[in-house]
């Protein structure tokens, strides 16, 4: 209803970060002469930032509960990766190692969540102690040295090495080789068709129930998302196909999108962050909500450990330092509120991509790595300042 008549100002306010992302992409496209849009670089953007998406998804739930963050994830990523690598190094079955990494991550998250949820230890402190402790444990497990992974299946499946792409089954069946990757194209197109089908179904249901929501706006977003997906598919198909890490990213983002929008626990996360007392008086066991959030980010740290170990083909006690900050920054740039209760998976994705694009663009241009950190910091500050200011105007 009123979305139809959305003013230009409101439009910019709602889609600030997407507009910023487009501007930044164009900016670097001009600066690098289009290099940042080459298929290889698009592919790298995804592969390099796999861990950011996974960790930021978990982090978003923590932030939703009231601006709480998890400082330990970098160390936990390193620790789970260390355990997994050592296991595989000792010829333990790869799947057992993978399960062990996920289980350890979940266990650590549950453990830290216990202190936060049940004993009211401030999340900042509980996870700061985890940050120290698990960095230390990583060192102990690795004996201070790097341990590498040689298991081909593991590397291929989790996005490391030269062959970490979804193989082109269609061309294999046809007995040909070459580009573009037909399987990639097929999957991309089918996925987009399914997406469009679901959206249309949703709009039809809304119409039947007489729910007033702007249909043109919904169609427009559907069209834009589909177009971006097709564009991405074309780029990747003309490179080596879908990187396997994209499967895991997609899986995680899909699940978290579902949790935050469709489930009761997702609703509780927003409610606790918005007004914990009111939520408790509504019969929700609020402390368990915190516990859930921290257990979930632990599991994500386990998965990120797997992805990191695969991408680096091993692990070193100093790896994954500062990963927590990338995840936190993605959420805040993506519009999550530092006070909790507000934030979306879609926003977080935009935030993570924006950070990734800026990083990569600066790398291609050849900006000094120290200066890159300065830029990252400024981007985070600007994003949050803008958010605060735009909210102040509303009042």
């Amino acid at each position, binding site marked *: 209803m*009123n979305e139809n008549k959305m003013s230009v100002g409101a439009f910019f306010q709602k889609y600030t970060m997407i507009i910023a992302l487009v501007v930044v992409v164009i900016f670097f496209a001009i600066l690098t002469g289009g290099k940042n849009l080459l298929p290889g670089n698009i592919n790298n953007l995804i592969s390099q930032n796999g861990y950011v998406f996974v960790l930021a998804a978990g982090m978003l739930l923590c932030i939703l509960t009231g601006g709480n963050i998890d400082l330990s994830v970098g160390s936990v990523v390193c620790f789970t990766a260390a355990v997994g690598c050592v296991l595989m190094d000792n010829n333990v079955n790869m799947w057992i190692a993978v399960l062990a990494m996920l289980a350890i991550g979940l266990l650590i998250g549950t453990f830290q969540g216990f202190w936060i949820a049940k004993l009211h230890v401030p999340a900042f402190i509980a996870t700061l102690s985890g940050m120290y402790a698990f960095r230390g444990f990583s060192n102990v497990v690795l004996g201070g040295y790097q341990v590498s992974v040689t298991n081909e299946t593991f590397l291929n499946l989790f996005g490391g090495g030269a062959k970490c792409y979804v193989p082109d089954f269609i061309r294999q069946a046809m007995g040909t080789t070459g580009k573009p990757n037909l399987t990639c194209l097929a999957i991309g197109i089918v996925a987009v068709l399914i997406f469009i089908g679901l959206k249309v179904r949703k709009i039809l249901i809304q119409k039947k129930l007489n729910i007033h929501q702007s249909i043109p706006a919904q169609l427009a977003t559907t069209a834009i998302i589909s177009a971006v997906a097709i564009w991405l598919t074309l780029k990747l198909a003309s490179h080596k196909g879908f990187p396997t890490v994209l499967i895991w990213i997609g899986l995680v983002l899909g699940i978290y999108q579902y949790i935050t929008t469709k*489930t*009761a626990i997702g*609703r509780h996360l927003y*409610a606790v962050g918005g007004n914990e007392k009111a*939520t*408790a*008086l509504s019969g929700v*066991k609020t402390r368990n909500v915190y516990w859930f959030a921290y257990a979930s980010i632990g599991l994500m740290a386990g998965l990120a450990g797997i992805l990191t170990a695969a991408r680096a083909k091993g692990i070193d006690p100093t790896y994954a330092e500062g990963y927590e900050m990338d995840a936190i920054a993605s959420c805040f740039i993506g519009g999550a509120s530092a006070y909790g209760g507000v934030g979306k998976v879609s926003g977080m994705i935009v935030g993570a991509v924006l950070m990734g694009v800026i990083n990569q663009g600066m790398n291609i241009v050849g900006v000094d790595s120290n200066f890159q950190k300065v830029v990252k910091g400024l981007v985070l500050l600007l994003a949050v300042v803008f958010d605060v200011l735009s909210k102040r105007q509303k009042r």
Partner: protein
Amino acid sequence: MAKILLEMKNITKTFPGVKALDNVNFQVEEGEIHALVGENGAGKSTLMNVLSGIYPYGTYEGDIVYDGKVCQFHKIKDSEKLGIVIIHQELALVPEMTIGENMYLGNERGHKFAIDWNTTYSEADKYLRMVGLSESSKTQVKDIGTGKQQLVEIAKALAKQARLLILDEPTSSLNEEDSRALLDLMLGFKKQGMTMIIISHKLNEVAYVADKITVVRDGSTIETIDNRGPEPVSEERIIKGMVGREMTNRFPKREGVTVGDIQLEVENWTVHHPLYPERKVVDNVSMYVRKGEVVGIYGLMGAGRTELAMSIFGQTYGTNISGEMKIDGKPVKIKKGAADAIKHKIAYVTEDRKGNGLVLSQSIKVNTSLAHLDAISSHMVIDGDKEYAVAEEYREKLKTKTPSVEQLVGNLSGGNQQKVLLAKWMFAEPDIMLLDEPTRGIDVGAKYEIYCIINDLAAAGKCVVMISSELPEVLGMSDRIYIMNEGKFVGEMKASEATQENIMALILQSGRGD
């Protein structure tokens, strides 16, 4: 006639959705103690906040004339510079700091970058003696009692060279003895020429200390009573001003309601304060509510009404709760936490809708379903379409004014927020509804609509407990009234027998009794 020190002319202050002050005129003479009385939400504190610059110049209409000059206060410091100092109802002291540090907080002695602690403590001691405290100013605030903390607040105000001292409910947390000492201290200051404004609910104290009493009602000053005669003004006279308004058509008639069997019964219910377990907040209360009945609980702020309701609602307030509860004649033990209370079909609609009622950053839809998500979800997965339909249904039923149920609750007016809160609890399908100040801070029109909803609930056979500190509302809406004071039920009457005067008299008697 003495010189007029302060004159507030035609002050109007609007909050989103509510006119808190409507063309208020208020005069204070130099050297007098002037009392402001009125019900909760009448606008006393708002008026004082306008005066002290908490609501800065420009956010209200009208003029403040102080000492013959028109003033524009942009912040508290501006008014304090002229000697207008306000002492708020809630003590604003930092418990971990010393008395001296607290007294000069934001007003530090010496240089900004080098606080002169010797001056700080010696001056602090001087002012402490003036208010009759013998403590050293190096004592930590947490180590002295509430009564003395109140005196420290006054010493702090004196240290700011107060000329016009405003005390907002200074005795609300004090016992009889400390209260009397404080009032005598005020009379002492008056002799030295200080001007004071006191806001208080305790009319006996007002009658004792004040020279003039101004009554505020519904955001307007009604009258100013002179109390300088040989006989102090009677409390009944003040009450008449506070509550005496036309009662025609302010409350909808309830028709065709048959009051059924007793549904909720509470016996010998005692609740202790969660932080000070030796304090009884609710003391041996027994009550019952029938199906289709609206039972009013009247009491002033701090009487223990909210605490009683919340302790019934799954022990969400208090410790060491004792007593028996029966629902439909069967004894029940409700586990701690709101979830079990909701399972027993009890709902508690809070008095503090922003603080612990609604999630302001979420939509009407989300708030409506929050207490009863099970009904619109299967296996923890929410059916969004069903949820929307439910929110729409209640929006229509309660006539909530909003463009859509996707609207954020934070953007609604107070009355519409209250409707969303009611919708949330009606959707939880309770049999017993505990409504705590259901019309606080909303305007007259919205109040009427809320009253209609309450009547509909009773007509549907729910038992409704309505807690209120507005006497006319209690009288107009209830079938039966319990009167509560200082944690105890001091009376029970049928609405037909109750009058404002006899209810107030009950409270005053019980207050004097101990």
